[in-house]
């Protein structure tokens, strides 16, 4: 897509990211502009960005998932429980992805079979999955034996400095490339755009709208499972109350990155940049000793400004 409009659309969030990085670099060159701080910021972004990859697919298809935070919490509990039972770490990780994906199948089935709106369905699963996590964890934290999974989100030590950033960050970047390719170079990916842009057109063109949505939720929420894995690695325990409210950060990342909540539009790279922008702002504000409430107001302004700018870009495009 080498065109003036899509380059603008693609670059818009990137310009925003460069702007906030430059801003804090000027304001706090000593503390903000360090290799260590950048490693930490990437680390802090990994969970939200990974979940947001799946959310990008879901939002492009015209859907939404408000329960992704509950899903992530459930996944941390599942991993911890499996590890505590002596399951090898690889299978515990796969179990987490499977649980995330199954939740997606459940949500997708409710939406397509019962013809409910995604907002309502996932408002329901927002509570239900959180409850399931708490039940599975017997309303407490699930401790797990230490395994290599815990190292997923740790900045490389002296022996592995060649990695530059934590393995989880590399995983997140690899998944970004994967989802981007899936959306651009597969028929399924193009169908996700078509269904989100105009369901009637998709139906007219012989696309199975229900199946496309179902698969989008199942695949998209496999990323909630991976995000859950990263969150577990960060916490080193299974915590049914973790990731509370993360769904809003995840949705915000997609929207800042150029996703449209009415479907048919969204960019995977934009989403990751959107997630990074929010981390940079939070980190930069902390470095400037600004109170938490100021960070929250600034983040809110950025979300709204991103959408306004996106609309202006569209108008210029015509």
């Amino acid at each position, binding site marked *: 897509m080498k065109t003036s*409009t899509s380059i603008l659309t693609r670059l818009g969030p990137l310009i925003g990211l460069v702007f906030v990085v430059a801003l804090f670099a000027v304001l706090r060159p000593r503390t903000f502009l360090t290799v260590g701080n950048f490693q930490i910021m990437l680390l802090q972004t990994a969970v939200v960005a990974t979940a947001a990859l799946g959310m990008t697919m879901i939002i492009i298809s015209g859907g939404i998932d408000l329960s992704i935070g509950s899903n992530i919490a459930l996944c941390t509990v599942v991993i911890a429980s499996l590890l505590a039972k002596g399951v090898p770490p690889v299978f515990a990780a796969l179990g987490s992805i499977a649980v995330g994906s199954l939740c997606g199948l459940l949500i997708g089935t409710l939406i397509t079979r019962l013809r409910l709106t995604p907002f309502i369905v996932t408002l329901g699963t927002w509570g239900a999955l959180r409850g399931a996590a708490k039940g599975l964890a017997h309303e407490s934290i699930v401790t797990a034996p230490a395994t290599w999974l815990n190292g997923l989100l740790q900045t490389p030590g002296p022996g592995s400095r060649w990695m530059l950033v934590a393995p989880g960050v590399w995983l997140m970047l690899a998944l970004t490339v994967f989802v981007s390719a899936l959306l651009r170079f597969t*028929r399924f990916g193009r169908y996700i755009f078509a269904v989100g842009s*105009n369901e009637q057109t998709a139906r007219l063109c012989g696309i199975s709208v229900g199946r496309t949505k179902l698969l989008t939720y199942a695949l998209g929420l496999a990323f909630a499972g991976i995000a859950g894995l990263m969150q577990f690695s960060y916490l080193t325990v299974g915590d049914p109350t973790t990731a509370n409210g993360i769904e809003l950060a995840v949705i915000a990342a997609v929207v800042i990155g150029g996703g449209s909540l009415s479907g048919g539009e969204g960019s995977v790279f934009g989403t990751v940049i959107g997630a990074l922008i929010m981390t940079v702002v939070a980190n930069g504000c902390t470095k400037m000793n600004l109170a938490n409430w100021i960070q929250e107001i600034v983040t809110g302004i950025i979300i709204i400004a991103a959408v306004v700018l996106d609309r202006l870009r569209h108008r210029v495009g015509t």
Partner: protein
Amino acid sequence: MSALLQMEGVRKRFGATLALDGVDLDVDAGEVLALIGENGAGKSTLMKVLSGAHAPNEGRMQLAGEAFAPKDPAAARRAGVSMIYQELSLALHLTVAENIVLGMEPMRGPFVRRAEMRRLAIDAMTELGRPDISPEIPVRKLPVADRQLVEIGRALAVGARVLVLDEPTSSLARHDIERLFDLVRKLKARGLAIIYISHFLEEVRALCDRFIVLRDGRSVGSGVTAETKNADIIRLMVGRSVDDLYPRSERTAGEPVLVLEKIAGVSKPADASLTLHRGEVLGIAGLIGSGRTEMLRAIFGLDPIRTGRLAVKTRHGPATPAQQWSRGVGLVSEDRKGEGLALNLNIAENTTLTSLPRWVSPRAQSRSAQRWIGRLGIRCRETTQAVGELSGGNQQKVALARLLEHDADIFLLDEPTRGIDVAAKAEIYRLINELACAGKAVLLVSSYLPELLGICDRIAVMCKGRLGPARPVSEIDEHQIMIEATDTSPA
């Protein structure tokens, strides 16, 4: 004495198109005037000017001797001009009384005077002869005919002097139509001026004192209903010469590729049989709402088929849209923006949507789109431009390009030239002609008779869900089509 409402030399331009080109209309108190014209003749635009929804570019309007220039529909209503649209504009969850006073609620300070509201509603419904309709009942619980009465009641409550009824019988059962007619006569006796828009000449004859005919945005004739024959009214509606806009090369029909035998859908079509051959353009005429679109949708698997037999080439039985595409059938929807195209996707995506391989190459998509942009003369910046940014005619060409890219050989085209400019129309006619010459089969639904007569080989007329026999275009004319489409006997 001058008429209650007068419109003189009204012109309305939308961009380059002249929707109204000098219309004169007058209607007096205690009179029912029929406003007649083909689809697209400008009736709706004229009524929108009258009701304040559009401001005219030129022309004068007078109401009871005073200049009348409503700035919006609310102002027109207050001045005494009320419209009853085909699609009723009621708030379904509110009660009858709340709907009747909507926008002009009797107030005391910040509070609605509920007793007064109730009284206004009861008065209005009593005047309409239906005091049995409770003011407290939510409108959604009423049958359609009664909802229409509530809407008329709303007009009376606001003190309407001119009442416009836009095809009011299109959603009514026969006995409800009789009741509506009685009511219209009663309102006329009370001194209201009524403008009655209808396609059905029988209704016009039963109800209206005078008529006025619109064609191509002009008032082309008027008269007293009782003194005019149906045949003369129809001649006024269609009288046009067909120029060389319409290419139709010599061609011979090949083997049948699409056969319908007594197809019936859930409500429409009621009974449709036809045989479409290779190398021919078969036109379907009829009024809007006669079931033509529903027939195409049933063929294509978008709507269910209740009874009847469908065969595409050698395959029998109903099929899903995906199966029909794989058999070489393609549909261009009448609703370009709502259904035909994904507006925020680009030209390449829209063109290739039905023919994507499992692994997609964006570059190949662009190449395909580029080919059709050249062949069809689609005016755009690039293949990755969003379809929503194109003009109507170019959008329609993208919708057609999808069928060409798919290499379809049975084309179901539903109003393919609606709302597009003449140049784009001409190009689409040429394309249809080329397709037929190349042995493709085209089923063309259109409300524009000159185009049907100009490019089709055979034409069948649909009326109230029933499809008549297809006849060679040499054996049928506009006059005959209008008679069949409106179910009129040439009295």
